[in-house]
Structures are given as structure tokens and as C-alpha cells.
């Protein structure tokens, strides 16, 4: 039964204290999710999250607010990610490679997994249908090249090339976004 809001006595719920430890722990989980969504594998994501923690935590001020901790952890994460990609691609690490760390960290109001997922969904939706199909089957449904070829009526070689073109197209859309 639905009723109006002015009947009875409201039972006050006890306030629950928020220890800083839990706040910071939540932040590192989000940092890990942010990195994982960009490097796509657990081992690299763990290494990079550890780098972020080791770099950022000793520099935190004791009285820093949760929002500041989050901002600093994510700024460090972006710089660590840029260094990671620079090393992978054989670029000088001392140079700034802003493009390698993009996109920027999510706003505090949004959870990282949702933000990354929405970004990929948007990218896929903007691709031509044949490219989107190949990437969805391969990455989101875990099909092998052979299975994608059978599903789409193409040769394995053609799918391999289409995968390259589709990923390039996705990257172009990402950089234009």
C-alpha cells in the first residue's frame, strides 16, 4: 500500500563513520579499473596500478581530502599509462605523450567501469556495420578468427585485414571524439 509521506515517526538510522582507509581503497580499485580498461590484461594492469600506488601514496598529504586523493591518483595513473605505452612503442619516455594516456580520467560522479563501457559502446556504434560486427564477435563474444570468418561468410585472411581496418577506424573515432 502506498501512502503519503507525513505519517508516523521516522526511525533515525545511525550515522556510519567513513574511515579514510576505505575511501582510499575504493580509489585504487577505480584506478585499477581505469588502467585495465586501457591495457586489456590483468598482469599489465596490476603492474601499472602498483606503480601508481608507489608513486602517489608517499606524496599524499595526511590531511588530503578524498576528492584530492582521487584526482592525484588518476593524474598519476595517466602519466604512468603514457610511460607504459611510450616504452611499448619505443618512444622516448622523457617526452610527453598526452595522446597515449587519453581519454582523461572519469569525473567523480561516474564509475570508471561504466564510463569505459559507454565509451566502447559509443565507438562500436559509430563504426560501419561490417567493422562493428567483426570487433563485437572477436572481442566481446570471444570468437576466433576462424569462427568470425564462418559467421560472416569471409575468409580468415579477409577477416584479419578487416580487423586491422576496424581497429584503425575505431582509433580514429576515438581521437576525433
Amino acid at each position, binding site marked *: 500500500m502506498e501512502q503519503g509521506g507525513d505519517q508516523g515517526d521516522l526511525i533515525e538510522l545511525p550515522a556510519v563513520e567513513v574511515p579514510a582507509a576505505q575511501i582510499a581503497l575504493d580509489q585504487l580499485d577505480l584506478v585499477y579499473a581505469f588502467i585495465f580498461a586501457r591495457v586489456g590484461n590483468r598482469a599489465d594492469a596490476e603492474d601499472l596500478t602498483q606503480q601508481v600506488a608507489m608513486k602517489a601514496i608517499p606524496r599524499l598529504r595526511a590531511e588530503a581530502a578524498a576528492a584530492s586523493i582521487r584526482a592525484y591518483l588518476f593524474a598519476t595513473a595517466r602519466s604512468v599509462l603514457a610511460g607504459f605505452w611510450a616504452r611499448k612503442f619505443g618512444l622516448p619516455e622523457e617526452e610527453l605523450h598526452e595522446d597515449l594516456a587519453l581519454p582523461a580520467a572519469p569525473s567523480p560522479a561516474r564509475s570508471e567501469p561504466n564510463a569505459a563501457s559507454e565509451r566502447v559502446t559509443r565507438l562500436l556504434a559509430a563504426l560501419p556495420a561490417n567493422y562493428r560486427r567483426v570487433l563485437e564477435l572477436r*572481442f566481446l563474444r570471444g570468437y576466433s578468427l576462424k569462427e568470425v570468418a564462418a559467421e560472416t561468410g569471409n575468409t580468415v585472411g579477409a577477416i584479419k585485414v578487416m580487423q586491422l581496418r576496424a581497429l584503425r577506424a575505431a582509433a580514429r573515432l576515438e581521437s576525433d571524439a
Partner: protein
Amino acid sequence: MPEDDEVKRSRRLEEVVRDLLAGKRLRIGTADAHDRDAIMAAAALAGQRDPYPRMSPVFRRRLAARLEPAREPGLLSRRSALVAGLAAAAGALAGTGVGRLLQPAPQVVRYGSATVFPAVRWYDAGPLSAFKEGVPVRFQAGSVGTYLVREGQNVNGLSSVCTHLPCELNWTPSAHQLTCPCHNVAFDTEGFQITSPESYPLPPLPRVQVRITPAGRVEVGAT
């Protein structure tokens, strides 16, 4: 781009993709670096296979161990509190200075804040006398699934959805806990997580506002 060059590039890229989809580390050769944007796009797509990635318990423990020496003795600064949080999450509290500072109750994690659902409308859940002391009752208040737990003349309301994945919790009378059917996680009747050494630390269950009317009826606030 000549066709054979594109074929070569597509073959090299496929090796990177295959590794990523097998969960392996990124291994990128010098030649592959020309296709860096495509590789980064592949990594981002591979990351979507796990839309809710969380640090593994083993990694948490390792990270906590690496960070522990940085703690300033005698101070529970934000930095040491963070280390403490990691150590707590890793189940590594026993015997550590960090553990002594926090001293959580055994088995049940009591840190983290419970969010409180707004009460836009009030839903009648029946007379208070119908509720047994300490035994959660599942109640749907509009769009909000709840467990209502009587404590004396009060009733506490908890969200019925796990704070990890959006799965409906089940009441397990034998263990006196709310159990998530999706993974190995349970909560006590106050909404706090009951941990095992391998479990992820999770926020407590969101609170749902409850009131008792002068007529002794239990009402639940929800949207």
C-alpha cells in the same frame, strides 16, 4: 598502403590481439608500433571482456606488503590509513601494526559508509508484530528491493542487492547471513560484509529508511 603490407600488418596485429584475448601481457614488436593506435584500440576492447574489473586478493596482499614500510610509525595519517585499508582488505591484519590500529571485528568488515536511499514514498510492510527479531524479511518497496530486520521496537532496512554485482541476495537462515548467489560474498543482518581471506572488500549494503506508524505499522521509504 600496398596490399601485401596491409596483410603483414594485419598478421602482426592478430598476434597482439590473440595474446590480449588469452589474457596475456601486451607484447609489441618494433614493427607493430606503426599501428599503435590500432593496438591501443584492441587493448581497450579486450578490457571490455571484464566490465567490472577489480584487484585480485593476491594482488591486494602483494601491494599491501609493498606499501607497508612507507607507514609513519605512531601516526595514522591518510597515507598509513590507505595502507591499513589495503592490509585489511588483504586479510593481513593479524600481527601487524596496521591491524592493531584498526582492530576490526573478526570476520565482519565494519568500515565503509552505507548510503541511504531517499524516501519519496512510503510503502506499508505490515504490522511490526509480524516481524521476528533479527530475521530479515524480503520486501519490495516500489522499485527498491529491501530486507527488513527487526531490532526490538525498530526495524532496519537494507538494500537486497549485493554491492559488488547487481544480484539479489538470499537469506540463509542456517548461516544467519544474506548470501549473494553470483559470487562468494555474504553480509550480516546489519549490512556489513562477512569476509573470508579471499573475498573482495565491499561497501556495506545501502540503508533503506523505515518508520513505525503510531498504529504500529512498518513503513518503508523508497522511490
